[in-house]
């Protein structure tokens, strides 16, 4: 992959230099797509396959977007799955209450649960944000703890059972396809991704986030309200997670305290693979979106080989993650030390 730097087209070379990490992800996707085209063309390149993938990834894709925001500020959000499950369980209860005797939902039900989910997400995020910004608990601990707390509440209110007896209308609506082509889940993801892209690259808020992540001290001395920024970040993250939970609710047509427990580490993996620096201050949404797509393609592609155990997927994920980081080490070696020096302060 490094040999691509020798591409004769000058302009392309420039583009590659500007964002090596992004291009590396694109090359990886391209190589994998090519590999799939050679080996399993007829079973991989079908419309339904791509639609299924597009319906699957938004649930953890949305959570990853939240984790990314937190990581840009130098923190992390390990409570996303807890937030998602708690929101989906509470909304499932509301849906049960709204379901009429004939099994239908009133027209206002869908917008209502989504608005409530966003409000709930914001509230949970506020809690995380307060722990991080006001009480100065390291984010990794604060969110890990609150994640456990949310999961605990889920367990307490459901006794560990699945909540499912609500109208099928909800799941059917979300699992629908716009123009029979684009899954609704994907639309949620795109809206959120564009919104966060806009925030990060076009607004002052985004610039402030990067500054806060680069150096908290510098941000404070340049008059930024770090507390408010952190509160907003964690609220946004939890809102993303809550929406992810709503999509999980639709995909499983039920809610349960232990759905998606693997997503916590998976989200961190995606975000890091997407080129976000866990120390903070660096990272772009395009990288994260590409990483989500890459992982989904890898997993779905591998499933097309029945002989290969699906457990190899975690080997490949870990391998890809470490490979990308080592490649970054070789190309950005001189930056590594300054980053290191800052970290050790």
């Amino acid at each position, binding site marked *: 992959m490094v040999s691509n730097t020798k591409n004769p087209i000058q302009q392309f070379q420039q583009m590659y230099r500007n964002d090596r990490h992004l291009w590396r992800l694109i090359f990886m996707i391209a190589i994998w797509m090519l590999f799939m085209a050679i080996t399993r063309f007829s079973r991989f390149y079908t419309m339904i396959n791509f639609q299924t993938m597009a319906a699957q990834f938004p649930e953890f894709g949305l959570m990853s977007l939240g984790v990314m925001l937190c990581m840009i500020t130098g923190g992390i959000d390990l409570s996303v799955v807890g937030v998602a499950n708690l929101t989906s369980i509470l909304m499932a209860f509301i849906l049960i209450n709204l379901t009429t005797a004939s099994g239908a939902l009133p027209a206002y039900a869908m917008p209502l649960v989504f608005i409530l989910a966003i409000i709930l997400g914001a509230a949970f995020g506020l809690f995380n944000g307060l722990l991080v910004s006001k009480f100065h608990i390291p984010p*990794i601990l604060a969110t890990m703890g609150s994640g456990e707390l949310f999961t605990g509440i889920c367990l307490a209110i459901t006794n560990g059972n699945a909540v499912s007896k609500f109208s099928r209308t909800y799941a059917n609506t979300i699992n629908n396809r716009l123009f029979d082509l684009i899954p609704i889940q994907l639309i949620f993801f795109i809206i959120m991704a564009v919104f966060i892209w806009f925030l990060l690259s076009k607004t002052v808020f985004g610039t402030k986030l990067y500054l806060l992540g680069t150096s908290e001290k510098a941000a404070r001395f340049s008059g930024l309200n770090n507390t408010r920024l952190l509160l907003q970040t964690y609220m946004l993250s939890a809102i993303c997670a809550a929406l992810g939970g709503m999509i999980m609710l639709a995909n499983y047509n039920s809610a349960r305290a232990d759905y998606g*427990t693997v997503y916590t580490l998976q989200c*961190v993996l995606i975000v890091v693979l997407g080129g976000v620096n*866990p120390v903070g201050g660096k990272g772009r949404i395009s990288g994260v979106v590409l990483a989500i797509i890459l992982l989904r393609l890898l997993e779905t592609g591998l499933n097309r080989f029945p002989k290969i155990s699906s457990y190899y997927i*975690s080997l490949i994920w*870990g391998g890809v993650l*470490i490979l990308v*980081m080592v490649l970054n080490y070789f190309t950005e070696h001189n930056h590594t030390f300054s980053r290191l020096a800052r*970290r*050790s302060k």
Partner: protein
Amino acid sequence: MRIKTPISLKKLAGRNEPYVFLVLFALCLLIEFRSGQFFSSNNLVDIASALIVPGLFAVGAFLVIISGGIDVSFPALASLSVYATTKYLLDIDYQGGILLPITIALAIGALLGAFNGLFIGYFRLPALIVTLGSSSVFKGIMQGALNSKQLTIIPVGMRTWGTTALFTARNPVSGLTSRMPIAFIVFLVVLGFVIFLMRYTMFGRSIYAIGGSETSAHRAGFNVIRTKMVMYIMVGMIASLAGVIRVCMMQQAHPTNMLGMEMNIIAGVVLGGTAITGELLDTSGDSHFLEECIYRCSDHHRNRGERLPGYSYE
């Protein structure tokens, strides 16, 4: 370098340990009060034997956190090395004692730890990312390449070692008996070794120095890369040892039931007073025991709660 100073009350009040200890003590009293069975000999032995494995993991996580890193791969590492060991020994129909299994597991653990150490030390990649990746890789090797399933039979040497008791405690009221496994001595030895290492050797001090500031440690003449490498190898070995003990005590090798412990262990280590940023705190020695005490509490909730009348774990 800090030498052991006489403990004053004022100094103690600024540290985590007394508070953790008080909470722990209060909890013990509460449970004792509600069940009347907490301070019974068999319950105490049960708790001690339940804290061996998390305790060993915590010792490893403690070392890593002191150095300013974080390790989320140790459950996967332990699972892989112990699973590979057990599987291999079953395949060759091994009939001997415990020494060979432990040696093999330690060797595999050292190798896997070196894998972490290589990327974290030599390539200077963030520890969180590397261990996330390696945890995924280890799991993949175990479940994919080794095609892991639950092994209900383990080699006879491991089985007998796991069931051999140092002593047995019997509760005169309920008639329940509890065995203190021989592995508890291993735990104490590892704990003592790490305390000695962290307090009295240059290697231990260099881990603190790296946690304080990697650049300064380097300038002060510590070999940062080598220290990290050795440390991750040690952590890998400690985790593997914990894995072997777990398998011996459970009498079966379950590939995935250690996975997912990492976050609780890390939380416990931090509660025990280890600064997660790796600053130079006097966390050696005594805070260790308190970390383990946290485990006592949590294990106690989970495993012993239902056995004690009048107390249930929600």
